[in-house]
């Protein structure tokens, strides 16, 4: 059977197939979805289904916003540059003060670490290890009891 014969043969058989019928659940499903959609307020639906007045109004508003943005952007750029320049000046003025306060807080933290935390670190480590060991042994014991029961039952 060559390709052309195969095409005709399969095509004939496929066309003879009865069309699959929609399940009985489809119609109620579609009607319920349509009812739910109808109950939504118009502004919660797709834009192309809005009332024509609102479509025109929203388009006009969008155009106005875009137009205003196009006009305002150059002015906003100038304002932004001015603001950035003045901010940079203020930061440059404050840099020594900020650096000084940073140094003070770093030294304070270092002192606290050496005096309060460092001496107790080995003890804390030992306590953590002991707690982990205790937890592991409890888990093992529970496991043994539970699985032991499961095996016996």
């Amino acid at each position, binding site marked *: *059977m060559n*390709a052309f014969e*195969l*095409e005709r*043969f*399969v*095509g004939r*058989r*496929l*066309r*003879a*197939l*009865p*069309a*699959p*019928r*929609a*399940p009985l*659940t*489809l*119609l109620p*499903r*579609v*009607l319920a*979805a*349509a*009812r739910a*959609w109808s109950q939504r307020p118009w502004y919660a*639906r*797709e834009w*192309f*289904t809005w009332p024509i007045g609102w479509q025109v109004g929203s388009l006009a508003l969008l155009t106005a916003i875009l137009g205003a943005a196009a006009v305002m952007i150059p002015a906003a750029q100038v304002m932004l540059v001015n603001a950035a320049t003045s901010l940079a000046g203020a930061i440059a003025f404050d840099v020594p003060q900020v650096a000084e306060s940073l140094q003070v807080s770093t030294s304070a933290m270092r002192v606290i670490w050496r005096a309060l935390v460092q001496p107790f670190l080995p003890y804390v480590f030992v306590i953590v290890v002991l707690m982990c060991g205790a937890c592991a042994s409890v888990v093992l014991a529970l496991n043994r009891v539970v699985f032991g029961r499961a095996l016996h039952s």
Partner: protein
Amino acid sequence: MTDADQFESFVGRYQDMVFATAVRLLGNRADAEDVAQTVFMRAFQRFAEIGPSPTAAGWLKMVTRNTCLNHLSRYRRRWRLFSELGSASAGDEALNPEALLAAESSVADDLERIERHERLERALRALPDHQRVPLVLFHFEDLSYQEIADALHVSLGKVKTDIHRGREVLRQVMGEA
């Protein structure tokens, strides 16, 4: 007749056509039902234009086809998995025994024909998507090879090869040399 009644009769009139197109393209009844609902919801949203239009059937077919192709490209992996699982279970609802039994032939012939149709329908659904989709578009949707290649964004050669391989599989299933 209210709008709701008109829409109900509209869905009743076209649901088999939309579902048949969807289930053959998707190979999965649950997905086909979802797609059919999506298609009818789109029709509902434009029911004032679509409902009375004489081209409603063509519009529905086109929207169903496009929705199915979008669905396949979006959920390809998941769809493959479920179509494989689904092919193992029976797709018996897909058959229309009443229509077959209406023919004037013996009961044995009818049963044999039903079985043959069922086997072919299952084989069609079990084909991998890259073979079944172009095959369905060619034989059921009457698209040309070039139109299928354009719709699926693949080369013309690939479409021809895939359709030929799909046909070979179906021929083997039908048990014809």
